[in-house]
């Protein structure tokens, strides 16, 4: 959790719903965000995360529910506070920099209505430009900047407002991998330095895990899990969350026994008679119609002569800088992807695949949990 300054505000949404014509894009979403928290809303396209963020910003009007920002009801009943009176800032996906204003004027825009002296405003603006590393571009116009530089301007503009809540609408999605990584770190650092509450939306699970204090996973307009990044990764509440946060493989299995409070033994479909241990978070409806979800971190490769594990065949290998990611066929129609090994196993080679029970989960494959 970050350092909380008096500026940071809490955000609470309850029973939030939004429909566009016949289409329901948000349904009964309730989230409480503590002041100073960095919340990431994670979900695929069409899950309603952008709509949710726009409802918090005041750009969209929810069809039902309540939003409270810093103790003030901004949406609820007949109340609808317009965006300019919500005291928040936002970084847009397309940056939304005004093309007729220079970098300096873009950043200074939120300050123009403040009671600050002109010199004080200019000072703050310069300071922010310095902090995001674009002070040398202050007199340029947005069309003269690269994508990364434009996003830095958008970040500086959001910080300039000195508000208690900053919203981020997939701010890194238009950038290349290098810049994305660099800016992600800057967003994390600067936002926490500013001590504000942040709500950040993305469809990229690695971005979410890297940034978040809390993650809300959305699917088809519903909040399906709200927890810390660690818990979401280690204890996904549904098949959707498990899949969306990255699995190396998913197989239909049969439960053959139990191990302690949250452990089960399952029979693998591709290796007759071979069973492994896995975690089972919730009570299963049946022992037969379940799936095994395997995280990439829960699989390791070994030489074929190794005693443990099941047999596999290397289908593909890719160098990733620190080692090698492998795709391994483990049976007819069954494979595991992104299996890391520090050494290279060549294509077509036989290996042994070993499973770590703590990174294998058994769930009803169709099960969906709504928070």
């Amino acid at each position, binding site marked *: 959790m970050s350092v909380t300054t008096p500026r940071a505000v809490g955000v609470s949404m309850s029973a939030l719903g939004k429909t566009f014509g016949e289409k329901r894009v948000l349904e009964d979403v309730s989230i409480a965000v503590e002041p100073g928290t960095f919340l990431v809303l994670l979900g695929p396209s069409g899950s309603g995360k952008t709509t949710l963020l726009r409802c918090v*910003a*005041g*750009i969209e*009007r929810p069809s039902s529910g309540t939003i409270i920002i810093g103790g003030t009801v901004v949406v609820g009943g*007949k*109340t*609808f*506070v*317009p*965006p*300019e*009176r*919500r005291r*928040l*800032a*936002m970084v*847009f*996906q*397309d940056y*939304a*920099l*005004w*093309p*007729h*204003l*220079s970098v300096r*004027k873009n950043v200074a*825009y*939120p300050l123009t*209505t403040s009671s600050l002296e002109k010199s004080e405003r200019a000072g703050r603006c310069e300071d922010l430009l310095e902090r995001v590393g674009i002070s040398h571009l202050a007199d340029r*116009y947005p069309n003269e900047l690269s994508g990364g530089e434009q996003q830095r301007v958008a970040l500086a*503009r*959001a910080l300039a*407002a000195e508000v208690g809540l900053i*919203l981020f609408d997939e701010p890194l999605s238009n950038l290349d991998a290098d810049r994305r990584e660099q800016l992600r770190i800057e967003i994390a650092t600067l936002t926490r330095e500013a001590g504000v509450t942040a709500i950040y939306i993305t469809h990229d699970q690695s971005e979410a895990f890297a940034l978040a204090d809390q993650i809300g996973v959305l699917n088809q307009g519903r909040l399906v899990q709200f927890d810390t990044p660690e818990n979401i990764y280690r204890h996904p509440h549904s098949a959707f969350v498990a899949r969306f946060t990255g699995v190396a493989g998913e197989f239909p299995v049969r439960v053959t026994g139990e191990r302690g409070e949250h452990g089960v033994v399952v029979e693998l479909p591709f290796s007759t008679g071979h069973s492994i241990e896995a975690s089972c978070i919730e009570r299963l409806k049946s022992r037969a119609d379940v799936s095994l979800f395997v995280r990439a971190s829960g699989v390791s490769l070994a030489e074929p002569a190794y005693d443990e594990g099941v047999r596999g065949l290397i289908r593909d290998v890719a160098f990733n800088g620190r080692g090698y990611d492998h795709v391994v066929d483990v049976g007819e129609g069954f494979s595991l992807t992104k299996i890391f090994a520090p050494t290279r196993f060549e294509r077509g080679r036989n290996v042994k695949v070993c499973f770590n029970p703590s990174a294998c989960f058994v769930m009803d494959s169709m099960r969906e949990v709504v928070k």
Partner: protein
Amino acid sequence: MAIAALETAPPVPPSPATNKRRGSLGGVVLWLVLILLIIAPVTSFLILGVSPRVFQQGSQWFTLSYVRQAFSSYFGRGIFNSLWVSTTVAILSVCLATALAWLIHRTNVGGRRFWTVAMWLLLMMPTWMMTLGWTDLLQPFGAAQALGVNTHWFYGEFFGPLGIVVVLTSAALPFAYFIVSAGLQGLGPEYEDAARIHGAGPLRSLRTIVPIIAPALLSALAIAFAETMSDFGVAFTLGYHSNFPMATYVLFSAISNFPANFSVAAVIAAVLIIATIPPIILQSHVMRKRSYAVFSGRTRAPRRRELARGPRAWATVAVAGVFFVALGVPILGAVIGSLVKNLGIDSPNGVHFTLTYYMQIFRPSIQGDSLGAPLLLSNQLGLVVATGTGILAVILARRLVANPGSWSQRVTDVFLLGSVAVPGVVLGVGYIFFYNLSFISHNAVSIYKTLPLLMLALVANAVPGQTRFMAGPVSQIQPSLGEAARVHGAGRMRAWRTTNLPLMSRVLLWGWLLTFTKTIAELAISQILYPPSQEPASVSIQSYLANFAPNTGTAMTVLTLIEMLAVIGLALGIYRLVTPNGWRRVGWSGVQS
């Protein structure tokens, strides 16, 4: 004041229901205005064509006798002539415009900036002014002869279909040019590169690329056809004098002759609208399905073909030649014509140049009028009409691009498409008829034969075109720009003023100038609706030209043109002086397309 009041309003948030009510109330008011401006006058007038009794203009509830009358003899000839001339002009102007657009945007032809400015001038030049310039130049003992050029042989040819096609093609050229240019500018070099890499020669590459801009070409054809069909300036001057009736003129004569035959005029008006609607709808349909604007983040800027010195010189001469014929000849003819003493009269003393006619302009003539009052009136009309049109067009353009696919957007779109097809002369006659109905003048508004009626008709005439002109730039403004302003503390008005207005400022300025100049030189509506003893400049000039003082009329025309150019220069100068640098960096795309 209003903006400040809105910004400091107490923080009482409007409820969703209040906002919805406000939105629908605004919509009702807007449509009420549009009904009174365009829909009611035009439809009530059109009904007369088949049902004169509805408005006590005859005894029949339903008759086709006026339809037969409209397609026979003189009226029929007018309709037939307009149809074939418009088709010819549309094809010619699109061919010429495509060649010009390609040379100016895709090659290093000389004077590219100058040709773009010249195209704008051509767009603003009324067709009756072009006709006048040509006539002054070609007529026996005219301007050309004063310069020692014998044009006798061409004079007879010009007074007929040839001259009409030349002038109307010149007038349609800018409409086609701007549409084709927009299509060409969005066409990155990657399409041609891809064709060449996959084995296509230059010709096959061209055949591959042309279909990509086909919607733009089709669109240009439709607009050129519609503009030519609805033109009144040439029909009233060159068409009438060369005994080559055209639909807009025969419509005018149907109501200006005694007794006025509104029913036949209504049928001709319907023919004009019906002939124009299909190409415009087709164009709109094609554009919707397959946008020629292929701009994307990945489209690279178009590449210019570097012509060698010889071909470049030839290309520059060819472009200059087109502009000389379209713009140079009419201006030259009018300017020289206004300076030659006794233009068109065989004088034993030879040709003499004089400034007498310019001095006569501001002296009371035999009629007791000078150009001073009409020109002042035209400027006042231009000011009011351009401002009113601009406001209405921005509101409509925002409606047109907001909520794509919604019921409100579709209705606005259909209405605007239909209205673009209504010629000024139809609107003028519709106004005479509708606002003279005793039901209207006794129970609603009594503005028949007044200046406000003329103003309303001019606004109604300019709004559809101006809205479509604005719609492109308005749709290019990403909603997130305004949303970002709101989120960062700007109220609704401030957000619009600080983000949307700067981006649209250049388009608004050019739109305003276009309407202003078109209003000053407008002839069809002015001729039909001017109140007694309050002639606008265009009407006053026509009466001078036609009656007793053609030389003074020509001088008046030149002076009006100079005044129009001066206003454009002044407005652009003020814009440059008062707007921040950032405003001038953006917004060109909308103006150029």
